[in-house]
């Protein structure tokens, strides 16, 4: 790459911005509801639907709740859902992929067929069904997201493990008499970490996205708790009259997704770069 240096520097700056944004978002999501002057749930009919002002940065909603506080509370829930489900999906995916790739044969066959089957399901169905059966809430959303979310991860890890399993250094490890489990965990998995990490990072915005979508359908987080998706959905009916009620959470959500996607892309390119070398 000719202008590699400038190119990478640009990337770095961009990545730094993304990370900083995400960090700020997390800090705000934690701090605003806890230390802010308003509660996310307390209503006050006297200050309904106020526009943005100094005392209420994003204005108030029709319950007279401070939208700024609610948005950050919702961002927290969204992030929680995103990260928790990404983590769970990541763990399941890595476990399944590793076993499937390393054990091969029957185990591989069974696990991968199961993955095929789950992948052919319109996964939204299962998310909706689960939230219906279990009731709306953070837990059932996470559960719903975990039905099919791990499959990509499992496939990626499996592919990596199969590739690495036959690499010279894995053979060397076998000749040295290192036990299988240790080969898998110490030698193979760390080398599969790159693609897995990329996938994991991308799982977060995906989950946030899906959660927002589900909330939009009305099967998301139950009121008065709220995620960004539910806040947007709640504001939809007043969208034309009080656009800021929808725009503010939407912007927060979009920036969050952008930052997460940006970090993912960056990590992806980094890893791709390292691999090319």
């Amino acid at each position, binding site marked *: 790459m000719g202008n590699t240096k400038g190119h990478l520097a640009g990337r770095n700056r961009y990545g730094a911005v993304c990370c900083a944004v995400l960090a700020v978002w997390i800090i705000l999501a934690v701090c605003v509801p806890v230390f802010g002057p308003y509660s996310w749930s307390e209503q006050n009919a006297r200050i309904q639907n106020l526009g943005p002002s100094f005392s209420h940065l994003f204005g108030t909603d029709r319950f007279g709740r401070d939208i700024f506080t609610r948005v950050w509370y919702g961002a927290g829930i969204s992030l929680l859902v995103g990260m928790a489900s990404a983590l769970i999906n990541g763990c399941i995916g890595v476990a399944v992929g590793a076993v499937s790739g390393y054990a091969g044969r029957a185990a591989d066959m069974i696990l991968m067929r199961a993955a095929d089957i789950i992948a052919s399901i319109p996964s939204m169905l299962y998310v909706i069904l689960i939230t219906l059966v279990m009731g709306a809430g953070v837990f059932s959303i996470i559960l719903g997201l975990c039905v099919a979310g791990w499959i990509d991860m499992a496939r990626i890890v499996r592919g990596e493990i199969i590739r690495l399993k036959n690499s010279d250094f894995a053979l060397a490890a076998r000749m040295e008499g290192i036990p299988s489990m240790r080969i898998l965990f110490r030698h193979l998995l760390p080398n599969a970490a790159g693609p897995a990490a990329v996938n994991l990072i991308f799982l977060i915005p995906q989950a946030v996205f899906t959660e*927002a979508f589900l909330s939009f359908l009305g099967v998301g987080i139950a009121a008065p708790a709220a995620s960004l998706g539910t806040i947007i959905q709640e504001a939809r009916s007043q969208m034309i009259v009080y656009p800021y009620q929808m725009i503010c959470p939407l912007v927060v959500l979009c920036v969050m997704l952008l930052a997460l996607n940006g970090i993912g892309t960056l990590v992806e390119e980094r890893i791709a770069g390292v691999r090319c070398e």
Partner: protein
Amino acid sequence: MLRYAVKRIMTGILSLFVLATVTFFLVRLIPGSPFMSGGVSQSVVEAIEEEYGLNEPLPVQYLSYMAGLLQGDLGISYQDPGTSVTEIIARAWPLTASLGTAALIVSLLAGTGLGILKVMSRKKAVGHMISAAGMAAAGIPGFAAAILLLLVFSVKLKLFPASGLYTLSSYVLPVISLSLYPTAVITRMMANALAAEMGKEYVLFARAKGLGRGRIVLTHALKNAFLPVLSYAGPAFAYLLTGSFVVESIFTIPGLGREFVDSISSRDYTLILGLTVFMGTVVILVNLAADLLAACLDPRIRRNFAGREG
């Protein structure tokens, strides 16, 4: 290749079987009955349930459903008396499919074009702009994009219809909202793949043979760079073909996605099942088609198709 396709189809059938079974029992777990509504008494509900055979033990219902399924009979919708599930699919799917196909074509063309532009353009600003636009498109949730488009272009500017899918112009907004995200992804994938392809030795050799950059991109690199895009486009198309509830709901298009959510909220068991099986079939077939297409494009796969695993 034929053997591979047959094997995939067999797996697909197995998948569908498991899918139908799991869904069958899962929908029964949802609280509520298909015939319960505000004004109907319990005894009436029971009477109708009996009429539809819903009072029989679950395994019996299951067996009779599966027997019907084997003959291609998806049953009768509970909510729309006298309408078979097949009929409902037959009237909802063309809408969804035309929308999805249009969205796929748009995103493939736009994505490929922008991807090429990003790689080929000598001006850095163009590349940055495309990246930024792609990022933004991927970051805005589909429902938000759809609502904003609707507000601006049909409610305010009155350029396009706000509802239905009656005229050609009413395709514009839904197709844009549907293709926004895939376009962003395809652009990024295309640009990455193309850049990688352009760095390969055969491109260098082609240049050494005296071919121009444009020729190289079109005849050499594009086809190879398209393969990874195809692996994304297949599932994405399957997704589009099974209906996006959000876009269908916002633009009032009675497609599969909307039908699906409606069927769940009205507990129309046969319709839920029928739609699930149908969507599963579409997903499986489209993915199969994408893989076969990839095989056609890539002679390496075409010539020795024997051992490819998913």
